[in-house]
């Protein structure tokens, strides 16, 4: 009974908690696998940069049409795709590498966004808008989150083989197929799509956390790529559930707590992770293998 009150009653009693959980699960299914590929491709900070890059687009959508899901999503997508494509083109055609051109593009985009917002004179609700509230998910937002998760999963399943090969050995894929370029573009588009979906629910920066933390943690737990995806998604869901329960009982803000829970799982994996945690280094015999 007490355990029920603690762990289940919040969701049984309140629809907003069920919605928040559903939203968190949708984010956790799609985000962490993408985060995994970002890490494997040494693009772990790309998510953060892209999250900043979509802000101005979302802000423009907001300024044009108010607090409406459609324009903000489209604006965010457009800004993200422009920055991703722009930095890709610059990386291919100039001396700048991808990270430098991405940094340049997202900084321009962010500055532009802040300027646009201040033109309207009222900068107040933008923080509330862009740092969405997982407690205020309405039907449209939930459907958007679920649709993004579904599209991401289907796309990842279809692209899985070329994406893994391209991630591990891009020149090999280039020698056997021309799919490398399109695969990379679709992959970045999926990242943008998930960040745009995530900012509706958790806010931009926290959406990145949901993408990267479970992924990093899964890499410490297993070396098997397929298992990593499952573990990362499961950790994301666990973090979403635990964050909401604690927010409910302790009266702390929900979005940050969800990410803190993901962070806690990451720290646990960092210490105990069987595939690369700190403790593993001190097991007898391990040093000699290295």
């Amino acid at each position, binding site marked *: 009974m007490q355990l029920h009150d603690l762990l289940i009653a919040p969701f049984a009693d*309140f629809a907003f*908690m069920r*919605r928040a959980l559903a939203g968190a699960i949708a984010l956790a299914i799609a985000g962490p696998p993408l985060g995994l590929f970002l890490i494997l491709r040494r693009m772990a900070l790309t998510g953060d940069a892209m999250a900043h890059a979509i802000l101005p687009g979302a802000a423009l959508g907001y300024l044009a049409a108010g607090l409406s899901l459609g324009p903000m999503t489209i604006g965010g997508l457009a800004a993200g795709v422009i920055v991703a494509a722009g930095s890709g083109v610059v990386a291919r055609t100039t001396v700048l590498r991808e990270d430098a051109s991405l940094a340049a593009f997202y900084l321009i985009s962010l500055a532009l966004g802040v300027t646009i917002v201040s033109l309207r004179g009222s900068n107040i609700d933008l923080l*509330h808008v862009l740092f969405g509230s997982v407690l205020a998910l309405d039907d449209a937002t939930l459907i958007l989150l679920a649709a993004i998760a579904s599209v991401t999963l289907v796309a990842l399943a279809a692209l899985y083989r070329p994406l893994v090969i391209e991630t591990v050995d891009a020149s090999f894929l280039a020698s056997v197929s021309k799919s490398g370029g399109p695969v990379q573009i679709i992959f970045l588009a999926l990242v943008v799509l998930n960040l745009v979906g995530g900012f509706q629910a958790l806010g931009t920066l926290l959406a990145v956390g949901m993408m990267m933390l479970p992924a990093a943690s899964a890499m410490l737990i297993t070396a098997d790529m397929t298992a990593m995806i499952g573990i990362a998604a499961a950790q994301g869901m666990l973090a979403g559930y635990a964050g909401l329960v604690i927010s409910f009982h302790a009266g702390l803000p929900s979005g940050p707590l969800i990410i803190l829970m993901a962070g806690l799982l990451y720290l646990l994996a960092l210490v105990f992770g069987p595939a690369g945690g700190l403790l593993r280094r001190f097991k007898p015999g391990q040093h000699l293998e290295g």
Partner: protein
Amino acid sequence: MAHRGYVITYIIIALSLARGLPAHAQTPAKLPVVATFSILADFALNVGGDRINVATLVGPDGDTHVYQPKPDDAKELGAAQLIVVNGLGLEGWIDRLIRASGAKAPVIVATKGINPQQMNEEGRIGLDPHAWQSIANAKVYVVNIRDGLIAADPAGEAAYRANADNYLGKLDALEADVKRDIAKIPPERRQIITTHDAFGYFGTAYGFRFIAPEGISTETEASARDVAKIIRQIKAQNIPAVFLENVTDPRLVRRIAAESGARVGGTLYSDALSPSDGPASTYIDMMRNNVRELAAALAK
């Protein structure tokens, strides 16, 4: 007393102004006044009329709590001959901004002489700065602003007094209307939820209970526990309506309403006026709009 210090400052500045004025008397330049936010600017304009120019730091629909100063604002302050602030901690940034701008104009604290209410927020007790939400207090604002204007521009004393008396008369009429309209709402239905508890003085003056899902500041994010508490409370106490505010996330309010069965009222204006084409572009319109929305949502 600090107040005496102010008064002496005003007198000194008034004297120096008075000495300087006759030279430019042929071209009556307007007195540059800076008000920190839109409601104060409305009061100042009503009292100052066409003798003054009012610049507003936080414009319509802006949030005074989280305002970011712009260089223009420092310029306005530097050029001002009178600065009108609310006080009671509303404009936490104003002292630094005034210092940074090098402004030497006297600062009128519009809430001077008001009996401040406390707000209790999760155990922290602080002064509630939203005193203008009671029309009786608004009259104190107007008197303070009138006296400040007279001190800064003694030549306009007659005009300021006439304007202020005229405006105070309008506020009296407004107060009578508000009380009459609220009397029609049954007392047990005078409970509402809004996103920002800026209505403490309104509640005390007119017998309403305002319950907020967020704290005293618009910066805090609501927790799941807060939201659940409010939904439980709406159900337990049969609170008839929830209201959106012009400065915070309306999605949360809609969610609470959908889940608790309370009616979603229209927009209440609390911290800022609406743009000039909106329903609350002046203080009087704002109060009338709020009472109209309340009456509509709380009627059976």
